[in-house]
């Protein structure tokens, strides 16, 4: 059990792994695919998605605005991230990611994150035209499925505590609130990794 954050005692159930193609609630065929570090065409497509993202839906300063800032944000966190992207008709319409906690916040750290022992921060974004169609839930479940495949066990996030739809979504898949002392509510989930099966 990590020492820095609280986690639920019981691991959550199983989750589907990407890739898959399923219709959303508006009958659009959505493809979900996993990726390691974002680079090349995929990075360009994800940058494109965030350029289209309505800044009114930003949370806690992310995503940044402007193509250059978006690109450097994704490159900065990208190195060891775990990503699932949702595409429709060739466009990226949603993105979910896990970014490892590192001890060295100055960015000097170059080692490979330890999936099993490490803690991972989660975030999900869906572009406005594709919201309220179940894509956030699909992204979340498949990202957690991907995480289990990689042996990741400890996942956490923060969410603005007035963002009830997001909190409800996280609770549905098994996240529990672990801290709500300030504007951001911290939530965490424990996955069924190899070490506790």
């Amino acid at each position, binding site marked *: 059990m990590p020492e820095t954050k609280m986690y639920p005692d019981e691991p959550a159930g199983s989750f589907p792994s990407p890739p898959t193609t399923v219709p959303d609630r508006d009958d659009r065929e959505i493809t979900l695919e996993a990726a390691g570090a974002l680079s090349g065409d995929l990075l360009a497509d994800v940058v494109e998605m965030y350029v289209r993202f309505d800044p009114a839906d930003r*949370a*806690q*300063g*992310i995503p*940044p605005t402007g193509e250059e800032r978006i690109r450097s*944000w994704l490159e*900065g*966190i990208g190195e060891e991230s775990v990503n699932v992207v949702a595409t429709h008709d060739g466009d990226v319409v949603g993105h979910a*990611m896990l*970014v*490892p*906690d*590192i001890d060295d*916040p100055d960015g000097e750290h170059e080692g490979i994150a330890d999936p099993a022992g490490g803690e991972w*921060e989660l*975030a999900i974004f869906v572009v406005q035209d594709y919201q309220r169609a179940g894509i956030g839930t699909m992204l979340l479940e498949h990202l957690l499925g991907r995480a289990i495949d990689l042996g990741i066990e400890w996942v956490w996030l*923060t969410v603005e505590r007035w963002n009830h739809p997001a909190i409800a979504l996280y609770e549905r898949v098994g996240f529990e609130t672990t801290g709500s*002392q*300030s*504007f*951001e509510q911290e939530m965490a989930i424990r996955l069924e990794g190899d070490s506790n099966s």
Partner: protein
Amino acid sequence: MNVLVGLGGSDESIKTLRRTIERTQEVGDDLTVAVLDKPESPRSQDEMYDDTAKLLDDAGVDSEIVRLEGDPGSSLVDYAEQGEYDQLVIGGGTLSPMGKIQLGPITEFVLLNAPTTVKLVR
């Protein structure tokens, strides 16, 4: 302007102090530095007091430094209420691995309870 800056003992606190010193020098503000009692910080209150004194000294800024005991948010707001301060300055949050801005409970307490304008330093 009479400025009170409240500092824990993190790297964010050092950045907040540096920025506030720069601003003080630019506009000729009067600065008071309150070093808070925050045991979970990487620097102890004594260490932070010494670092503060050195940074002020290096910059040639003549400021009063006070040590505030007890709950950091509440002791800072109490101190601000007792003095004639125009502005209270605190750190503007830390960044998560994802790059999300995170404001802690002290920040929230100060924002909601301070009688003065509050400045968050990024």
